[in-house]
């Protein structure tokens, strides 16, 4: 079987169907969200240490940031 293309090796281009502008009164460019919103809609690219489980690490982040809910993308065994 030949080496296959991984999802991160796929190149995509943007094609335009119509022209339109966005109203600056609503929403935010993700980089310009106010702090509370930025955290609420945020993701941390964490370097998991060896030892604790993915679940424990997520719980620590929750405690450090003093927020209600966190999740993690894909268990990395202890």
């Amino acid at each position, binding site marked *: 079987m030949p080496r296959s293309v*991984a999802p991160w090796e796929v190149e995509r281009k943007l094609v335009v169907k119509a022209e*339109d502008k966005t109203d600056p009164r609503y929403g935010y460019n993700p980089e310009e969200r106010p702090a509370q919103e930025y955290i609420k809609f945020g993701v941390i690219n964490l370097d998991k240490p060896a030892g604790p489980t993915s679940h424990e690490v997520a719980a620590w982040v929750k405690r450090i940031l003093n927020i209600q809910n966190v999740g993690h993308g894909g268990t990395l065994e202890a």
Partner: protein
Amino acid sequence: MTGVLPITLEESRKIVQALLLSGKEYVCLMKLHGDMPEERVRAVLKEFEDTIYQRPPLRASVKRQLRTRRIYYIDFIEMDGRNVLFKVGCEGGTYIRMLCHHIGEVLGCGAHMQELRRTRAGPFVEDEGIVTLHDVAYWFMEWQKDKNNTVLKRFIQPMEKALALVPKIYIRDSAVDAVCHGARLTAPGVVSLETGISSGSMVAIFTLKGEAVALARTEASTEEILNMEHGVVARTKRVLMPKGTYPKGWRSGEV
């Protein structure tokens, strides 16, 4: 085991599903149970660049039925005695410990996984914006001093980053709130889209400001959508943006 573990905060937990399904890359140290020539090890690793069968282990979080996983590539790095170091790119949900066991069986000498480091989870890679738990604690404390947002950006990324590998459809402001309410996306709402979308693809619907609105499954390909004047483009599967962020763009009978 160490490495890339994306942590989703509050609202961004809604994209976890997309991350779980996304591809992963690992650097793995495998220990052979007998001596093997390097050429043989290299050849067997290549044989596993294929669709492989795996049954989830006894202690697993999913149903234990035989399933297939795609190994995109295995790159041999080096070998020292019975220690073999390789890099593997694979579909989400591939068990690397099991992969090592199977490689050992094909080699005939047996093998096990000694060390594992995840170097990629979907769009998140280890050499780009990765932070340790200590960094998180430190930068959060720094941010609390003067609430400077540049400090926040040192360790938190917008959830849109997590969708970087998902093909996107950008829509008009007037179509946003309907999708937030779970409506299907129709052709007039589409402003632009990415190439390579086929009917049935999982896509991310974005605003023109680059905010994620929802995850959806398409009903047509990029080419078809470009030529459509009306009709359903995609069915909303998971709404990511709170309702009311954008004004209601449709007429209601009650008004």
